[in-house]
């Protein structure tokens, strides 16, 4: 008799578990909201501590090169000419082909001028565009030039190195983000 009971209980068990499972899937089919994010059109909120692209507050930077020294993959290159306390910038670039977004470049900065943004859309059409120029201006600012007038002959501001097609777009995005961050700080 045991095996007969087993036979009938297995039928009840099979049908019951299938019905229960179908109930679960029907509930998911009808009522539960979908969890897909339609990415280019929708985005999930990014946490503020997210480690994305860098931004540089160039007027604060003192060209100490500690961020470049801290970098484990040597992706930061800095070049500037020193005229006393005035800097004449030629280069501050981050190679995003190498960058591992470890954030080791942020803490060493003595003037807190380099930050990471939440910008993560780094896709470009060519690997050349992955080397990002962090400078908002090259050479000297006009007021610095005026300060130095008389001491040394001011050089004509060097042309900004060609950053490639995708560079300008990213540049402007990061600048916008920087402005936003500054506005948030003021609040």
């Amino acid at each position, binding site marked *: 008799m045991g095996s007969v009971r087993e*036979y009938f209980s297995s039928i009840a068990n099979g049908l019951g578990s*299938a019905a229960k499972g*179908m109930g679960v*899937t029907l509930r*998911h089919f009808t009522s539960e*909201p*979908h969890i*897909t994010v*339609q990415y280019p059109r929708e985005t999930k909120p990014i946490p503020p501590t997210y480690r994305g692209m860098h931004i540089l507050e160039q007027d604060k930077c003192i060209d100490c090169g500690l961020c470049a020294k801290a970098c484990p993959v040597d992706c930061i290159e800095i070049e500037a000419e020193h005229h006393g306390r005035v800097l004449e910038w030629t280069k501050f670039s981050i190679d995003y082909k190498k960058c591992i977004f470890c954030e080791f470049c942020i803490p060493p900065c003595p003037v807190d001028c380099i930050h990471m943004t939440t910008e993560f859309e780094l896709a470009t059409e060519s690997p050349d565009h992955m080397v990002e120029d962090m400078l908002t201006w090259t050479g000297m600012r006009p007021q610095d030039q005026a300060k130095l007038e008389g001491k040394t002959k001011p050089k004509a501001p060097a042309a900004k190195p060609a950053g490639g097609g995708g560079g300008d777009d990213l540049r402007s995005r990061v600048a916008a983000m920087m402005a936003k961050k500054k506005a948030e700080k003021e609040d």
Partner: protein
Amino acid sequence: MDILITFFAETLGMSGVWPLSFAYATCIGSLLGFVTVYAMFAIWMERKVAAHIQQRLGPMEVGGWHGWAQSPADALKLLFKEDIIPDGANKWLFWIAPAVVFCGVFAGFIAIPFAAGVQIVDINLGVFFIIAIASIEVVGVIMAGWASNSKYSLFGAVREAAQVVSYELPSATALLAPILVVGSFKLSDFNTYQAEHGWVIFANPFMWIALLIFFIASLAGCKRAPFDLPEAESELVSGFHTEYSGMRFSFFGLEEYVSMFVVSAITATLFLGGYTLPFNLLDVGNLPAPFHLIGVAVLVVKIFAVIFVQMWLRWTLPRMRVDQVMSLGYKYLLPWGLFAVAGTAIWQVWMEG
């Protein structure tokens, strides 16, 4: 069919074998077009059902509105893909197998009554014609599996053979129950009977068992999960069509969805009233000429309801083991199918006598 023959014979003035040939060509051409469009819709629907059951969205980009053009885009892609025939394959069998598989299932459309008079041939043994012609598909699958010269393909084909041959028995047995009620094998008789007496499913309590058994057995016949052992991605790569690519591969996919349509059409016609409305609210079978095509819409709605249940079940249950499939077929479905037939027979005699 008769309308088409008279149209070709009288309106266009054809004689001899030409009216019949052109009538068949028209039917088959329009059915092929219907099947292609239906399969594309069903694949899109399957992906949508699967996605929503898993709280995803499914295809959303191609074509704008909810990714409706995803299936045509995939079909176009498959058309342009290279048709690879493996080195060790038996080229002729490898080449012919998808055609055999597709033809076996497609032939089932001949007997399906879509509406009153909208049927290519009203065969006397329509029910068993569909079951018999659909099992030609197994031959094609074995051809595909053996000709591929791959162990996975052969395993898949052998599993398919064992499974489909086992599940022919319960499905045919379960179909005997509505046949006993209606007293005919002719598919059009099921519609006229159900227009008069109500749906067969409500004829007696044994009919529910018969429907359940036929539904489970037809899932196995279509190689749908939880009976997708011949494909079994996680075990056999993709079973008998592992070595296929391009358009030949897509024929196997097309075959799966067409066989789903055919078995759902049998379920709808034999158990769920065919093209008649519930309680015969509108006598669809006897409406004047253009309006009897409402029956097509009614039948298609019922068919898609059954197909939805098949998809729903596919995304609920995991795949069964080979021995479980066999024991389910022989130890559970077959005896209970015989029980349903015997019960129906006794019920019929008891109610009538």
